[in-house]
């Protein structure tokens, strides 16, 4: 805090009154006005222009679509994304050169950018693209400096850099902090002070378990003044089963996990044992290389165990049609495409989709490359349409496994199954013969072109002849130490989970159109470190949360924000709304309602009536999901990740808080702030019932009013309330109590919410009043924020 003040003092001299105003809305609009006019004034041109940092983003965004990797759409035979092509003479004017190193005026590229002749100007007006004058200046200078190309940063294998030297040597806790601090110091920024213990504990619990700390944890942590108090809490949390549940939520988005088949009739599927495996795998800390290899190719491992085969359910989580009358091959191709795209986004951070129909416009991935990757996933013993909506046999599709009693007592003991009904899960399994793969012209299933074989883009890493040409070979390629992407992509995603933004912001796109890393060296250091330490996920998580960067306070010191407005340099801890699933977890855990059972079939908690029914097809009556049959008892109080996901109508309580509908792989959720969220928190029976139950518990304990409110606050916000806060809450309680005492019938009505048993002997007015105060606490901004 003190440090920040010093920094501020340094900057204060150049802080004119105008720039202070810039922090406001009007200021921002002025900035946009500058942008629009194309003169960015103070935005300087760096001394040394870098192709990767400055030029490629411009060329990729504005030029590659017509002068890039897509051979069929290449205008004038000109290609700018490859060095050896870019220095050629022009096809239709052999005297002119595209790029002349050192001479911008003789370089056709530059000439066309600044041309005022609309027939010549690039990009052409009809493209709706235009470069700013700043961008044109960058290109001019780059050409003058020799127009030096560099390979795309993400396709060069990471090398571990030395830890940088920093001035504030007392600050770093681990390697991460050196890189963060170096960038801060470069900009004369300083880290924020460390957060207080209560805040840290809440942050840590939410990040590692998705649950708020318990009163016991709070008490122990506050009393533990030992040196390693923090670290032992980290270890405790990493060892709890809630850790696997927390980690699974993100992976379920990536793996587009759902409890229904999707499409038309959208009937039930029994894929949840795969989800139980994910939780189990994270909890037993299966290394990332095995975690991925099993999911991609568990069935192809030598003598695979049933656990390894269950893991391959990953690639069968996609939607499967049960619509009568579809063309089988159209859908089978759709499934293979889904797997190919998921592989791209989820594991190597490359958006493959574009190359299904044509050569990629931005990345060096041709349509042929696409179908060579597709070929790995094209050999499954599956059909496009196996069965119409129906009974238990349709809950998984071939290839599938049955989970037997023996499995449950043995290798699959983590599958939480209590009934004796049959249980089937869709998994991967290859044909005995090879199904030929062709490039599909325009990506269409019935337009096969040139035949192709499984192979991988050389631009990333060539596929060694020694590797088997199947999914197992694909997994080996991923974990080849020379693979430039696998480790970076995962490390970056975990970084985003913890720090709220990726080191590469576009977590699903490390290609040309993706963002550049804000801290490239840190990303590489972490990636190599992860790789060299056995792809140990818990170790990685621990590294992140024990950094000094992580432990900073999230408070934005007054007038400090403009120095690092987006927190791009991590000068404070981020504040972020917790995910939809954890909203429910927080309410359940703090009210004491949570049933902490791990795994099992997904549950159907309270949901506004009529939603499924209004949307269901006539055919849905032949399945399980035409009508929403709400669960009762314990099933109402499970963690959010167990809420049943029907793809065509996912639970509103999840969707309103930005959860994925699980249609396709979603490596990144957006976070929004809407009035529907406010309505949900105010009126969802889930929250109101929890408020009632917690109120009853507090009343039963018989402590003073102030004590009750403090305790509720500690349970929900996980810190000791300020006296000013307690004052407001006490006032609210008094008002509500007065109201309900005057009108006990209203109190009775308010308490009639939820199925959890009522406590009859309590005073209804007191209970209803306290319930309203607890409900208010659930609506506090801080409650749903990790800060």
């Amino acid at each position: 805090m003190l440090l920040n003040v010093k920094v501020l003092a340094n900057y204060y001299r150049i802080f004119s009154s105008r720039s202070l105003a810039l922090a406001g809305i009007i200021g921002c609009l002025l900035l946009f006005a500058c942008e629009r006019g194309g003169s960015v004034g103070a935005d300087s041109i760096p001394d040394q222009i870098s192709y990767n940092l400055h030029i490629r983003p411009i060329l990729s965004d504005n030029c590659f679509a017509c002068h890039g990797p897509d051979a069929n759409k290449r205008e004038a035979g000109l290609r700018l994304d490859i060095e050896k092509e870019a220095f050629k003479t022009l096809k239709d004017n052999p005297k002119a050169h595209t790029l002349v190193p050192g001479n911008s005026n003789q370089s056709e590229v530059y000439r066309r950018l600044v041309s005022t002749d609309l027939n010549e100007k690039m990009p052409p007006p009809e493209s709706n693209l235009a470069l700013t004058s700043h961008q044109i200046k960058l290109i001019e200078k780059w050409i003058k400096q020799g127009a030096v190309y560099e390979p795309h940063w993400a396709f060069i294998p990471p090398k571990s850099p030395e830890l940088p030297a920093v001035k504030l040597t007392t600050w770093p806790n681990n390697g991460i902090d050196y890189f963060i601090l170096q960038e801060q110091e470069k900009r004369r920024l300083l880290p924020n002070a460390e957060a207080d213990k209560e805040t840290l504990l809440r942050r840590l619990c939410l990040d590692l378990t998705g649950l708020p700390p318990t009163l016991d944890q709070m008490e122990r942590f506050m009393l533990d003044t030992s040196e390693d108090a923090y670290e032992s809490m980290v270890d405790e949390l990493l060892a709890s089963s809630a850790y696997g549940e927390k980690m699974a939520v993100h992976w379920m988005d990536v793996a587009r996990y759902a409890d229904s088949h999707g499409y038309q009739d959208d009937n039930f599927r029994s894929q949840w044992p795969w989800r139980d495996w994910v939780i189990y795998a994270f909890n037993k800390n299966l290394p990332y290389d095995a975690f991925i290899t099993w999911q991609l190719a568990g069935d192809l491992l030598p003598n695979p165990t049933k656990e390894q085969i269950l893991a391959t359910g990953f690639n069968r989580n996609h939607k499967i049609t049960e619509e009568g009358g579809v063309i089988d091959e159209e859908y089978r191709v759709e499934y293979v495409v889904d797997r190919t795209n998921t592989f791209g986004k989820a594991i190597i951070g490359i958006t493959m989709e574009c190359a299904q129909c044509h050569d990629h416009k931005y990345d060096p991935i041709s349509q042929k490359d696409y179908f060579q990757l597709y070929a790995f996933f094209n050999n499954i013993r599956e059909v496009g349409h196996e069965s119409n909506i129906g009974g238990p046999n349709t809950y998984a599709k071939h290839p599938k496994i049955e989970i037997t009693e023996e499995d449950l007592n043995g290798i699959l003991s983590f599958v939480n199954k209590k009934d004796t009904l049959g249980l089937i899960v869709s998994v991967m399994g290859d044909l005995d013969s090879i199904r030929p793969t062709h490039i599909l012209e325009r990506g269409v299933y019935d337009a096969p072109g040139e035949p192709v074989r499984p192979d991988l883009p050389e631009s990333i890493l060539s596929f060694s002849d020694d590797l088997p040409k199947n999914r197992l070979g694909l997994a080996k390629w991923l974990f080849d130490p020379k693979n430039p992407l696998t480790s970076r992509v995962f490390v970056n995603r975990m970084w985003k989970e913890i720090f709220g933004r990726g080191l590469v912001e576009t977590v699903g796109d490390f290609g040309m159109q993706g963002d550049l890393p804000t801290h490239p060296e840190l990303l590489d250091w972490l990636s190599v470190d992860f790789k060299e330490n056995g792809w140990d996920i818990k170790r990685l998580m621990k590294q992140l949360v024990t950094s000094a960067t992580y432990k900073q306070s999230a408070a934005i010191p007054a007038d400090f924000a403009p120095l690092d407005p987006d927190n791009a340099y991590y000068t404070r801890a981020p504040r972020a709304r917790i995910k939809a699933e954890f909203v429910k977890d927080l309410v359940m855990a703090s009210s004491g309602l949570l049933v902490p059972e791990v795994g099992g079939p997904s549950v159907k908690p309270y949901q506004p009536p009529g939603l499924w029914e209004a949307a269901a097809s006539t055919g849905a009556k032949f399945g399980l999901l035409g009508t929403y049959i709400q669960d009762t008892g314990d099933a109402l109080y499970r963690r959010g990740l167990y809420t049943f996901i029907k793809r065509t109508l996912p639970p509103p309580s999840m969707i309103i808080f930005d959860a994925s509908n699980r249609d396709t792989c979603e490596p990144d959720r957006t976070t929004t702030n809407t009035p529907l969220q406010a309505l949900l928190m105010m009126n969802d029976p889930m929250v109101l019932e929890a408020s009632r139950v917690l109120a009853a518990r507090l009343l039963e304990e018989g402590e003073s009013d102030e004590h009750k409110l403090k305790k509720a606050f500690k349970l929900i916000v996980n810190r000791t309330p300020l006296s000013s806060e307690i004052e407001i809450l006490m006032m609210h309680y008094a008002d509500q109590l007065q109201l309900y005492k005057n009108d006990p019938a209203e109190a009775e009505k308010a308490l009639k919410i939820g199925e959890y048993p009522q406590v009859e002997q309590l005073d209804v007015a007191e209970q209803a009043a306290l319930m309203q105060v607890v409900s208010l606490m659930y609506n506090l901004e801080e409650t749903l924020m990790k800060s």
Partner: protein
Amino acid sequence: MENKLIEHGLNTNRRHFLSKLSLGLGSAALGSLLIPDLFSGSSGEAYGDAVAGVPHFAPKAKRVIYLFQNGAPSQLESFDYKPKLREMWGEELPDSIRQGQRLTGMTSSQSSFPMVGSIYDFQQYGQARAWVSELFPHTAKIVDDICIIKSMHTEAINHDPALTFFQTGAQQGNRPSMGAWLSYGLGSENSNLPAFTVLLSKGKGNGQGVYSKLWSNGFLESVHQGVQFSSGDDPVLYLSNQEGMSRQQRRKMLDRLAELNHLSFQKLGDPEIHAKVAQYEMAYRMQTAVPEATDLSTEPDMIFDLYGEESRKPGTFAANCLLARKLSENGVRFVQLYHQGWDQHGNLPNEMRDQAKDVDQASAALITDLKQRGLLDETLVIWGGEFGRTNYSQGKLTKENYGRDHHPRCFSIWMAGGGVKPGFVYGETDEFGYNIAKDPVHVHDFQATVLHQLGLDHERLIYKHLGRRFRLTDVSGHVVKDLLV
């Protein structure tokens, strides 16, 4: 220092920034305050140069009401009159007409494809002498207000991908739907109501489901997501306070909440805290604005008479049409209705009569009602399904009964108001009603045209996601100028 600020400004996408602001403020108002100085004219924006609340050019329509006939009503029993099919009743569909085009798995294995004409009679109506079948007597009376397109065609042959294609511009995937794009492009006219609302109803015929991805925001911010409304007690999910909690209590609670949140702000300094408070205030306003906007009880009897008796029954298509008018009148940018039950693979003569009865009067009433309020000019109304139906019978053909399979190669829809030519019939199919003979309109053309009427250029309404610029019309589509006034 200044560099840093400017850099920050540049890093913030302008639209993103404004749409963030508009969450609480009502972007139309904000937009119009700001545009004259900063955003008028068009110059070198890199992409997506529309700002929330700011169209690309002068719009003809301000709002859309889309009466989606889910399941695909037969064009051959509604607007595309084919006497030839009656003449050739039971004869085999000539190969020269079918041209080996793909069929669905439901009829591809049929040994014969007997052609079948409409069992219902047609007559010509209005100045345009438009053919309308006897199933749609009310629509027949308003043909001079509507524009019938008989030459629609699509790419998908099954319901899910075809619906998804119509609503999001792509058959697969999770893209924003048309309403979400409009919300993104134009913002909301009413700061107390969502810009994009959805109303569902079911007919008596064979029904295909609807899916929330049809009104999804896709990769756009979730503020652009369609909000499902119903005509029941809770018109918007979680809108009503619980029993035993009065509006005064809610007000008090929100005041205390704001006080406490302000204490957090003093400690943390995060402006998002204020944004949160603003959202709670909007929620509070919605609690009165939505029931007001959806309250049909104040409508006079003559209005219910106009829409038909069913309009008194919440949840029916007729009630939803009336509700749509109210929402639209209150500034909801895009009101999307879905009416299920149009999938007549068999038993068409019986099922379709009921289906048409469910929708005919109310659809026509909506046009009449908007017109008498002077709102039709600025409201674009669309009526139609996701594809057409085959000219041959699916299953056994008898004198009284037949069915029709999916047919993406031609079908009919109509539009009205919003600068679309009234009393106009566009496009023709061949005499077999199998292929388009003149003026084809692809789904992307239709989408481009709708956006155009709202003042948006479909090639410039763009959102960059995962490195690619996405459009509602994907990579194709032309505005069908012939349809426009």
